């Protein structure tokens, strides 16, 4: 049954992606029209802009090609997207991501698509950009035999497209562009699209500007290589009477710069629009989010949650929801506690074993690469093996027993497997947290968090001879590459916290509503466990935020299509957790004194009741 549901969810995501691609293709026509108008704009003859030549067959062909590119970009978006970002915890891990074969294929695809788009742009621009070769007469007039010469304007535009495509794909990895976050407020798709359109225009234009700047520098130094290669393969000649473009005078052609920039903007804009549409379509109403929203907005659906099953009188709906949410939260607590213990033992173990170590007390040789970015979704094989680089296998001889202890229970009480028992949720299958890939990626992330964590590395460090370590520590480059990025591990720990936030909101709203709406006292039975779970999590979160770097705010990223929401998820989780507990305590007030719980929890709860947290 699980596989059937997963398949359904996958289909939902696919259909949404198809719809988004269809919209992107439809939008291509107006975008191209704007591009044509802007590219022909001349300052001195504004009227001439609109009196261009009619569409030739080349232009129509290029439009069809562009549609193909958009569909390809949409497909790549669907293929690579993730709801849990990959957070590289050191420079070397980032390098590993960039050099991964899968990423290489992605970059190559973007390169080729960039060339195709640039060719379309060149054809649309017409004039001197139109063809790669042109007939010319070489020599001093004595033997003026007609030859084909290389049109460098055409070439420079094609290469610009390739460069921009390539740099776009690299930037995508660095800024986690494939990460799909969920909006703080729900809006209709059209309004969301309209609202973020100016931003996309701005950031495409800015990114195009920087890319073109870098490209010009590269072309100035290395432009002769592709030029010579093209001439050789296509049997073209270089026209010596025309000034070469890889010189300062050639590159400082304002019209050429403008056309390069507008073409790059066009390219990036079409791709970013496709990405934006994909994000908007795919993040619409998912299961856990749906629980959070229904608990907040829909009394009739809340009523269904509080109802008893007809024969038997069991609160199946509520049991399913609360069990799922509580196991999610317990999982996070466990993860936090394990992380905290690891950090604590790390320091102590180090100080014991290498008492007079020159290195800092905090281990420097830590690298972690959550594998989720490389985890591909394959229908029917839930446990795809981890193939990411720098991710040690779970059953490697180095794995410590502590590590096994950490990972084993996570595998069994998986947060997502068997998500859907509640019959009323099943009826609304399409509204489920439908990123079925997300489930898998979450699992892998959880596992990789455990597997390639500090324990392993520390174990490795302890086993390796101290001399080697000293030798490595003295090499600046190695230190630079392997040094742990501050707060990255904290970010990685909370990478999937959007689900926890929804679980907390859903639970707390339901409990709050139960005060007046729960006729059968369904919720009362689970209230102690809910409160206990939240209070333990609160304690773990508090402890986590006392660690260095955990509470430092990330630098607010500048404009770009990459979504940096994941960097602040831990703050959002902390705030939501506190609000959730307050929501319950303000609703129930002193009635909570009648709830069974341990003395320690009661003390903590009292703090909340007195508004002292």
């Amino acid at each position, binding site marked *: 049954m699980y596989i059937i549901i997963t398949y359904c969810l996958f289909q939902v995501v696919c259909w949404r992606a198809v719809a988004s691609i269809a919209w992107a293709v439809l939008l291509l026509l107006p975008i191209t029209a704007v591009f044509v108008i802007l590219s022909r704009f001349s300052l001195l003859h504004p009227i001439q802009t609109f009196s261009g030549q009619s569409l030739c067959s080349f232009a129509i062909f290029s439009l069809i090609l562009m549609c193909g590119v958009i569909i390809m970009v949409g497909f790549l978006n669907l293929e690579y997207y993730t709801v849990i970002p990959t957070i590289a915890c050191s420079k070397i891990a980032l390098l590993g991501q960039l050099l991964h074969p899968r990423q290489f294929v992605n970059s190559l695809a973007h390169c080729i698509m960039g060339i195709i788009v640039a060719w379309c742009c060149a054809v649309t621009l017409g004039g001197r950009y139109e063809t790669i070769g042109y007939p010319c007469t070489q020599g001093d007039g004595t033997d003026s035999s007609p030859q084909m010469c290389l049109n460098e304007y055409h070439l420079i535009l094609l290469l610009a497209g390739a460069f921009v495509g390539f740099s776009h794909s690299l930037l995508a990895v660095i800024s986690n562009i494939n990460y799909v976050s969920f*909006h*703080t*407020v*729900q*809006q*209709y798709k059209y*309004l969301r699209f309209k*609202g973020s359109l100016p931003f996309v225009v701005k950031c495409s234009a800015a990114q195009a500007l920087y890319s073109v700047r870098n490209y010009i520098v590269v072309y100035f130094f290395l432009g002769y290589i592709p030029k010579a290669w093209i001439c050789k393969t296509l049997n073209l000649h270089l026209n010596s009477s025309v000034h070469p473009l890889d010189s300062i005078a050639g590159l400082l052609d304002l019209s050429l710069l403008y056309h390069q920039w507008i073409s790059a903007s066009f390219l990036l804009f079409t791709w970013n629009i496709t990405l934006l549409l994909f994000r908007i379509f795919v993040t619409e109403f998912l299961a856990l989010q749906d629980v959070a*929203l229904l608990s*907040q*907005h*829909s*009394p009739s659906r809340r009523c269904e949650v509080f109802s008893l099953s007809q024969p038997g009188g069991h609160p199946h709906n509520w049991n399913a929801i609360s069990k799922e949410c509580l196991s999610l939260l317990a999982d996070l607590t466990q993860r936090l506690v394990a992380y905290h213990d690891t950090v604590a033992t790390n320091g102590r173990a180090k100080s014991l074993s290498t008492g007079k170590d020159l290195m800092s007390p905090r281990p420097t040789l830590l690298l972690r690469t959550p594998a989720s970015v490389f985890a591909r979704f394959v229908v029917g094989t839930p446990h795809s093996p981890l193939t990411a680089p720098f991710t040690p296998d779970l059953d490697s001889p180095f794995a410590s027993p502590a590590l096994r202890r950490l990972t084993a229970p996570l595998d069994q009480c998986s947060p997502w497997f068997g998500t859907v028992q509640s019959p009323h949720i099943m009826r609304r299958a399409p509204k489920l947290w439908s990123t079925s890939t997300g489930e898998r990626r979450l699992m892998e992330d959880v596992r990789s968090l455990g597997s390639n964590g500090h324990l392993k590395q520390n174990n490795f460090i302890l086993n390796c001879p101290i001399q080697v370590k000293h030798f490595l520590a003295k090499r600046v480059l190695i230190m630079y590459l392997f040094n742990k990025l501050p707060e990255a591990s904290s970010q990685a720990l909370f990478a999937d916290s959007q689900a926890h936030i929804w679980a907390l*909101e859903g639970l707390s*709203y339901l409990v*709050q*509503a139960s*005060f*007046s*709406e729960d006729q059968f006292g369904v919720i009362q039975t689970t209230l102690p466990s809910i409160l206990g779970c939240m209070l333990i999590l609160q304690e773990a979160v508090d402890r986590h935020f006392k660690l260095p770097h955990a509470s430092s*705010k990330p630098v*607010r990223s500048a404009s770009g299509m990459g979504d940096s*929401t994941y960097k*602040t*998820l831990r*703050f*959002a989780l*902390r*705030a*939501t957790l*506190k*609000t959730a507990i*307050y*929501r319950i305590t*303000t*609703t129930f*007030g002193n009635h909570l004194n009648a709830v069974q719980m341990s003395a320690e929890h009661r003390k903590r709860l009292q703090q909340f009741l*007195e*508004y*002292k*947290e």
Partner: protein
Amino acid sequence: MCSLALFPAPLACGQTTLCESNNELLSGTATDHRLKQDSSPLSLYFPRESLKLHCRTESSSKAAFLDHSETLWMRSAAAWRDGGLTGLLNEITNSNTEVPKWLSVSSGFTLALLRWFSSFHGSLFPHLTMSSENMLAEFSQVLNWSDCVVRAFAWHPHADKFAVALLDDSIKIYNPKSATTPTLKHRLQRSVAAVQWKPMCASALAVACQNCLLVWHVDPCSLSTRPSSGCAQVLSNPGHSPVTSIAWSPSGSLLVSASPMDTAMMVWDVASESCVPLQRVGGGGVTFLSWSPDSSHVLASTPSALFRVWETRTWTCERWPCVKGRCQSGCWSPDGSRLLFTVQGEMVIYVLTFGDTPAGVPTCTSKGPQAAAVVADLSETTFNTADGDIIVGGEIHSLSWDPTGERLAVLLEGDPQAADRPAIIAVFKTRTNPIFELLPCGFVQGEPGAEPRMMQFHPNFQHGALLTVCWSSGRITHVPFYFLGAGVPHFGLSGSPSLPRPQERPADFANQSLFTELIS
């Protein structure tokens, strides 16, 4: 419809309103009142002289430094950094001896064009030409904001504490149960227009400042009297200043902010410091926000004769064009089904009803009301008192409805020039079942010479309603209204359920036989 003519006459000079008991407003002489109030820990007095005002002006401190010759490049770069495009053009136009003639002439021409265009834009939306101080004063819910010692006031929604923003840009937090009164100061905390505590939280306080929004996290257990500016989160967005109004969602998850300069209203996720702009054509800015207590709607008024009611599930809005002026103030009934609002230039209170659903079931449908109805007429009425005629009535500055939905306070602007037309607070009794009704209760007056500037009801007063009033003299007083609520609207989602009201009488009024009679 209720009118001011039905009200009991205002008090004679020297008398102040003490409380409501037995269904009538009791008064006493000012000295009695002061003695009683001074003993209470929550009554405060901020004399204007005690505040150290800084004489920092808005413009830069450039004039204080000696002029020194820089190259044109340096000056242009500095002008670009300080004043943007207009600054750069101004600099080039002014230094016409150093630049080529065509450049200075063309930049002068561009500057003139820009000015003409901005004046055209300003004529469409006159508020855009105001300075930010004037704009804050114009759109604030505080009467005569720029001259007011207490610039903003907020009760905590759950705990017994409040925050007061003063003229010297500091914020003090008073808690009767604790000896420390933390004072919040921040470099960016200037011209505070509004403060509000985050619901479902003990510590977070949002502050609307001139250039940004601040969210302070004041640990209630901390003994520090000067929390560092590291405790404040700075939320800012280009073009979104000055911030004149803020509103937390009653569930405590979102914060919305409004600026008359920005046509978009910002919805903030405070923890992650990210915002979603909600923009619609028309209006030219957003001035006042109010979130309904059931968190289903948000009122957003604009500087033009137009206001919007946003529905908070999918964030769509209804447009409500007004006839005369902009929507000045508004407040929601505790169950979120009714919106009272006032319009600038009119002397009436309007009501909008959102769906006739029973209390506790918030409406999610987009089917709103068709037209607003007038519920009260507050046109000028002359009362004969012992001290001569007093004219009460006129335009309404702000509205406040108590959390039980039984009392409505209305701050009337009056006329600062005329002595016989003071600003005054009129209090109505409100009834929502079976039909919506306003009944006169009385006027709330302070000591002689003190005018009310702002008011707020205590969010969970046990014995009825407690109105906190900030006066022009810098005094903050609390006026209790003792009554037994009739059918307190129970409300499912937000707002704490009301506790059973204690039967014992408050100590101050032990000599009185009954403290109220049941309404309805």
